[in-house]
């Protein structure tokens, strides 16, 4: 803002179409031509279209009442909030679906495993039984349990579980000094 506007009483009366004379350069006269910001109120509207240096005031938005401003703020806030809620709902919903599905999948896997455990058990026991039956036949060459063919070992005496490292014998406490 290198310019100031001089407003005087005769300025309005002796307006001859050039506002040049109304301007006082504060710094250098070469910049005077570019000056445009002149408040509307000091110029008569009739002179505006004719003067090239006439400056047009931009329309400023009307100042909203406080109540309306609050409501707009509320609307924007609630929009963001609602958006967040929708996103959260979607995430939670998809999570529950995923969880359900994964639980169901794990459950089915478990059932399959249990069934195959049953199968393995069944086959294993059937095999054991048929082996035992085969072993019973005299041609199999197995001998029945008989004490004369068995070796009985007496259990070893229980040893202390912790092996004590050979400790140097603690010197016997001497109640009185020994003389050599």
């Amino acid at each position, binding site marked *: 803002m290198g310019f100031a506007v001089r407003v005087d009483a005769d300025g309005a009366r002796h307006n001859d179409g050039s506002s040049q004379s109304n301007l006082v350069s504060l710094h250098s006269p070469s910049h005077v031509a570019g000056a445009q910001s002149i408040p509307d109120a000091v110029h008569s509207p009739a002179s505006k279209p004719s003067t090239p240096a006439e400056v047009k005031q931009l329309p400023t938005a009307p100042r909203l009442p406080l109540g309306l401003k609050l409501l707009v703020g509320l*609307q924007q806030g609630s*929009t963001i909030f*609602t*958006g967040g809620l*929708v996103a959260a709902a979607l995430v939670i919903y998809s999570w529950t*679906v995923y969880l*359900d*599905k994964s*639980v*169901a999948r794990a*459950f089915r896997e478990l059932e399959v495993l*249990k*069934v195959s455990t*049953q*199968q393995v*058990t*069944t086959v*294993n*026991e*059937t095999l*054991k*039984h048929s082996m*035992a039956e085969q072993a*019973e036949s005299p041609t199999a060459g197995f001998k*029945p*349990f*008989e*004490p*004369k063919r*068995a070796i*009985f070992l*007496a259990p070893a005496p229980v040893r202390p579980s912790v092996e004590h490292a050979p400790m140097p014998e603690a010197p016997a406490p001497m109640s009185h000094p020994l003389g050599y």
Partner: protein
Amino acid sequence: MGSTGVPYLLLYPFMVTQPSNPFQRPPARRPRHLASPRFRLVTVWAFLVLVMLGLSARLIRLQLVMGDQLKVQAQEQRQSLPQVPRASRRPIIDRQANVLAVDRVVYTIYAHPMLFSRSREEMAATLGNVLNRSQDTLLQRFQEQETGIQVAVDVSEELAERLRNLRLDGLDLLPSQQRFYPQQALMSQLVGYINLEGEPQAGLEYALQDQLLYDLEDVPFPNSLQQQQPNRDDLRLQLTLDSRLQRVAQRNLDATVRRYSAKQGALIVMDSRDGAILSLAVTPTYDPNRYYEANVEQFKNWVVSDLYEPGSTFKPINVAIALEEGLIVPDEYIYDEGKLEYDQWTIQNVDYKAVGGRGSINITDVLRHSSNVGMVHIMERLKRSDYYSWLEKMGLGSSTGIELPAEALAQLKSRSQFVNNPVEAATTAFGQGFSLNPIQLAQLHSALANGGQLVSPHVVRGLVDPEGNLAWQPQRPDGKKLFSKETTQTVVKMMEAVVESGSGQPAQVANYRLGGKTGTAQKANEYGEYGDGRLVSFVGILPVENPRYVVLAVIDEPLGEDSYGSTVAAPLVKSVVESLVVMAGVPPSTAE
């Protein structure tokens, strides 16, 4: 703007993401007519709002008004899908965790030729190949009927999976639960069976059905009705039985019963310390997998459901009573005249004709020669009412507490009959005139083996997890004390003499000290008289120096003149004891 203000508020909830609404634009200056964009916009908007309202109303109706009804309808449709029906049960295992009973899924396969996508010849060839059946028979059946042909039953899971992977049209695989008994006939008298309808019918399957059934749990399937199915936890019912010993016992018992053409037989091995039964072989027996082929009489376990007169195997119990009451001392002499008259009844020793009266013999000899007259003289010293109280105290007439179903209670004469009639006490002295089941006799001998404690015989250890920890255990009463340790030690030593040099010699096992007593009882026939039928038995206690195991063999009606406890039952006990000492790790007795 005024005209759009109200609808905008209505629209607001649905169009949150479009804050810049076309209606917010300054109104056009053009005159209103039908073609104006604003009119068209309002129309379209109103139409959309109406559609939305309609859809919402429909949704509300479906969800809130008809919801329950539709849910029921959906359930009905889903439940018609084939599922594995029937409650399933926990496996039963033996002492070493060998499986005795386990559930398995088997399939019944139905074919519907009208739905075949391939030719019938091709289907018959494929099916015949997988199921190992003749293609021609299959093809013939396919030609006969258009639908619902039962092609195979009891098809295993593996085969069913192979069939499913072939992706053949027109085949139905219906799963069903089946109880499988891998050991076949070995344990059937204990374990029992489940019939084709899935109901337990005998044995432990019947007696412990509540413990064997799995709890139901909800199925966590999304979008499915909350159907329940058994929660197959890993608990299993463990028995105290040892399959290996059972196998030995069953084989030897079968051989003995066959050799003497006996009616039935049983062999019990009991651990006297807690009453756990290690082996309970019964013959005749059946395969529970094919129970429908068995004779109905075979379903009962006669060891618990039949009574018999124990005969001489009861004599050691009587001696223990007399010793406990202080009526005799171990080395006392009793006069055995060989024959006694009781009113119109005659009581005589079994060898009276051959040997006659034995004269004065000590208590050990009474048992060694199984002298009936000697026993009568011993028990005459006990007041008959006290004697009857002893029999009651020992549990005759009440249940032993074994888990097997249909236990028959011992039959005693009434107290007044027993007290007023001397012959009743006299016959009871040598084990006749009353009856009990073999399990109870084994229980009484366990009291001799364990120092006088009356333990409850049992076959069930409880429900165990895979690590073998008990999750459930049947309640058992604490055994009462019958005899003192000195009394039982004395009686077991006397029984050792029976095996060493008496009627029990055939049961001797080299290097082992075995106490025993033979029994040959006459069987009462259907008229209540003693007939020709015999019931021979032998009870053994081992090892004498530290008694623990009781082995009882009972053979019902062996044929042949030479069928006695000593000739039939004692060798059977010997054969089982030989395996028992090895399996249980009983070291040979050190020479005295």
